[in-house]
């Protein structure tokens, strides 16, 4: 019994750390190779406080978490600054883990490599279980809040996340801090359970266990890492003789899972009615293995190896099958009950608690049609814009002016610099020369998120959605600009502040989706949508930013004529409704000629022509640029 308690408590402790790491690696996509270090910080801090200064357990644990968070911020700042390069971060965590061990081995108060024996055994199965439940609850709440969605967006596509106004560095540091906090909590509990810690415990093997748990469980889920970590703690205990192979198994699993099933056990799903039988099967398999190994040990002496093994295997399979059936049965029974609880109920309460959100709320706060009167002051004024990549001049002294409310087309052969121009405007690339003025403000040198805040939104040539998030979440993430509630509230999901705020966000998002006819797909996973609808979703997401300028990069790419027509109607409708200024890159000449008031033509980075659609069609330079192609296809309006 005591032995079973020990296994349970160990699992709970590691699960707490795994939850934190799931947020960092699973959701935010930052690979950490030294997370045991944060457990070490929590362990030593709390142990020193209880051992030398006689603090009670809970404040000591919290202190451990705080120190862990602070150190993670110090480590995170330099290493996360190298944007978009997760390798630097991984290597840095590796170095940090080693450096921390050195410090712990040499400080007097930590008693060096000898470690701290004799810590009071203040952690047991009961209070550890409580901490684990609290951790899971907090993490789950966080992931459902605006802060959580921002992290998930970064994990899905950092570039798109920036284009939606999410600043990478502070959010990644937040993710690191949260994971450090929970790892610190886990370490503190570990110290007060095994009552002896030393630096060598917090080694690569421990970090590997946590990483393997998160990856095999499923990056993008909390249930997955929970189950996988528990398995990784429990199963080796059953097969003690194979202790060394346990680590080989972790390594092999990582390779196999990445190659064959990157989703891991639970992928992006949390526990729901659909995968309940799977969970039962896993539990059944584990219990079956336990019983099987007990049978084997008891019978092998009397019956010989093979019969004992067969009996054990049989018991294992039988248990797994039984529990799988049980799982299916339970899911079937719960089917009518569950939808009544959960999200639907919360939303109903939210409606009661907060103001009633209006379904006809205008989707954007941009000026309405009445102010679309094309004024003389240009909204966008680009002068002498240039960009080189090594020896290639991508954009060569381009001048471009767009008036408010105009739809400007940007065409040219492949490689003429159109997308590069967009990237320069939206701040993805730094300018080499020239200036980009937007509503009187110079945008050159701004960070992408600042440009988004100034009112510029864009879509991408090869659609950058947050593909594992739902359609609704994709749009909601763009609406978060200023989180309507605090981080603390996010963790606790305070019904009075958070529920109504989330309900408001949701309603606005639905309204936006309705504008592009996607409201029916709200709960579908974005990556499963047909291509044309994904494109519309990207536009809806861009509109959620309440932009004054919208950059559309080949929106009709890959669409058939019918879809292209729908798109044209959509763009026109948006423009009509809110008088949005639009710059449109396109190759489909029917779309361009149909929608744009003015067209600029680029070739080899230079602007070679600009004018109305008719002027462009007749322009010999343009025809030449398109390889002398006669403008018959462009005559299709």
């Amino acid at each position, binding site marked *: 019994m*005591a*032995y079973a308690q*020990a296994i349970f408590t160990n699992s709970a402790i590691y699960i707490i750390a795994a939850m934190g790491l799931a947020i960092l690696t699973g959701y935010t996509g930052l690979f950490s190779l030294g997370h045991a270090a944060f457990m070490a910080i929590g362990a030593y801090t709390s142990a020193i406080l209880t051992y030398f200064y006689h603090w009670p357990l809970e404040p000591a644990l919290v202190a451990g978490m705080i120190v862990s968070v602070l150190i993670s911020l110090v480590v995170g700042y330099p290493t996360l600054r190298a944007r978009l390069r997760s390798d630097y971060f991984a290597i840095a965590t590796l170095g940090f883990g080693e450096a921390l061990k*050195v410090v712990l*081995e*040499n400080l007097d108060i930590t008693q*060096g*490599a*000898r*470690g701290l*024996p*004799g*810590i009071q*055994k203040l952690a047991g199965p009961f209070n550890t279980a409580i901490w684990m439940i609290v951790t899971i609850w907090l993490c789950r709440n966080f992931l459902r809040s605006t802060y959580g969605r921002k992290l998930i967006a970064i994990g899905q596509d950092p570039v798109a996340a920036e284009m939606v106004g999410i600043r990478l560095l502070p959010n990644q540091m937040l993710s690191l801090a949260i994971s450090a906090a929970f790892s610190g909590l886990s370490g503190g509990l570990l110290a007060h359970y*095994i*009552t*002896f810690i*030393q630096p*060598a*415990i917090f080694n690569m093997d421990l970090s590997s266990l946590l990483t393997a748990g998160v990856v095999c469980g499923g990056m993008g889920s909390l249930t997955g890492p929970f189950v996988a970590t528990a398995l990784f703690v429990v199963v080796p205990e059953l097969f003690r003789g194979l202790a*060394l192979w346990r680590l080989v198994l972790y390594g092999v699993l990582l390779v196999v899972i990445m190659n064959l099933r990157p989703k891991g056990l639970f992928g992006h799903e949390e526990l729901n009615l659909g995968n309940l039988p799977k969970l039962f099967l896993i539990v059944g398999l584990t219990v079956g293995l336990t*019983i099987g190994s*007990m*049978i084997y040990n*008891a*019978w092998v002496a*009397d019956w010989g190896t093979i019969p004992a093994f067969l*009996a054990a295997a*049989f*018991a294992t399979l*039988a*248990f797994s*099958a*039984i529990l799988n*059936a049980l799982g299916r049965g339970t899911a079937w029974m719960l089917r009518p009950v569950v939808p009544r609880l959960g999200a639907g109920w919360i939303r109903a309460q939210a409606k009661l608690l907060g103001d009633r959100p209006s379904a006809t709320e205008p989707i954007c706060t941009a000026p309405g049609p009445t102010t679309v009167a094309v004024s003389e002051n240009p909204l966008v004024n680009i002068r002498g814009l240039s960009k080189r990549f090594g020896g290639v001049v991508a954009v060569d002294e381009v001048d471009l002016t767009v008036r408010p409310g105009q739809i400007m087309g940007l065409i040219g052969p492949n490689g003429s610099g159109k997308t590069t121009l967009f990237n320069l405007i939206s701040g993805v690339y730094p300018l080499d020369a020239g200036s980009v003025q937007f509503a009187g403000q110079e945008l050159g040198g701004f960070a992408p998120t600042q440009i988004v805040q100034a009112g510029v939104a864009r879509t991408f040539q090869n659609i950058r959605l947050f593909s594992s998030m739902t359609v609704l979440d994709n749009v909601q993430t763009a609406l978060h600009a200023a989180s309507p509630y605090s981080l603390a509230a996010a963790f606790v999901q305070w019904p009075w502040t958070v529920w109504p705020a989330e309900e408001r966000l949701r309603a606005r998002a639905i309204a936006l989706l309705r504008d592009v006819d996607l409201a029916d797909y709200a709960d579908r996973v974005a990556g499963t949508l047909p291509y044309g609808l994904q494109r519309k979703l990207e536009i809806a997401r861009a509109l959620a930013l309440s932009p004054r300028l919208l950059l559309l990069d080949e929106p009709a790419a890959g669409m058939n004529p019918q879809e292209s027509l729908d798109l044209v109607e959509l763009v026109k409708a948006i423009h009509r409704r809110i008088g949005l200024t639009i710059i449109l890159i396109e190759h489909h000449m029917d779309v361009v000629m149909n929608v744009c008031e003015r067209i600029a033509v680029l070739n080899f980075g230079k602007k070679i022509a600009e004018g109305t659609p008719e002027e462009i069609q007749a322009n010999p330079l343009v025809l030449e640029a398109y390889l002398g192609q006669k403008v018959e296809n462009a005559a299709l309006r």
Partner: protein
Amino acid sequence: MRAQSFIRLLVLLAVLGSIVPCAVPAQAQTIKIGHEVALTGPNATWGQSEANAVKMAVDKINAQGGVLGRKLEIVAYDNRADRLEAVNVAKRLVEQDKVVAIIGPAQSGVTNAIREVNNSAKVPVIATTATNPKVTVNDNGSVVPYTFRVCFIDPFQGTVAAQFAAKDLKAKTAAILYDVGDEYSQFLGKYFVEAFEKTGGKITGNEAFRSGELDFRAQLGKIKFGNPDVIFIPTMQKEAALAAKQARDLGIKAKLLGGDGWGSPDLFDLAGPAIEGSYFVNIAALEDPAIQDFIKEYRAKYNQDPVLPNPVLAYDAVLWLADAIKRAGGTDGEKLKAAMEQTKNLQVLTGKLTIDPKTHNPLNKPAVIQETKGGKFAFVKVFVTTD
């Protein structure tokens, strides 16, 4: 439905079947003794020898009728000399196997690690070669109630090394290179320095490295600069071999000196000719006349030489334990502890064992000096300290 109830029946049978063997009446109760030992890993050469010796001792005692009419049974688990693993092993021994005492571990750090487990369960531990004083005595001078040891302690070992260097090697200056990550190394180095300076010698270099580091050339370069007669390297055989090779690579001609951590035969494989003509302190040596019978027996049974000193000490530990159980009249933890503390003049392989009840350490243990000669360990002398 029929398939399901059929399956249910089979499962029921399987479960019942597994309970049956447990209901078989147990045989006459053995006395279970745990053994924490490193069967794999860098310390495996000592560990496996230890396990063999323990088995030898237990078999002998059982052949003579056991203890108090019951047979002794050894429950050994591999702790890989890893502290966390040792804690797991200790918990298993104490909670699941319900041993009455534990032989081992062999390392000071590891013995410290399991302290909480065996002390709260009142299960005595006899460390075999853990030489750091803090293993049995706390900082405030009180004794650790249920931890004992059967070897000498490092202050003694450091003194032996220092006096040997000063008197026999005629060294006036010395330097040390130690491992900060291992308290054995750290403290042995400290005791050497204190003792050497007491003989009037001068310490010209005091360098350290971190556990796991492989390259000490920077530190050795600095030591070379101070031109010592002798370099004391209180580490395990792996680091000693590396240090010896690198010292000779740097052209250092000083004599190298070490502690009982050097005593594994693979020292020669790892160091090659670099370690020739070096000396170290050990707890026992193959040539020691007192243990020749044991060595003959071991050779006959296992077809190889024991890797000293662990097997000898483990053997002594079993003898000590058996004697204590007899005097305690049973295996109750507190009575056993008291009996062990009262051990006086018990004849064991390495002489007569008398325990100091205040420190749980054996009194009057000898030390031997060995030399590395011709790819083998050569016995130099039994060293008697002066002070």
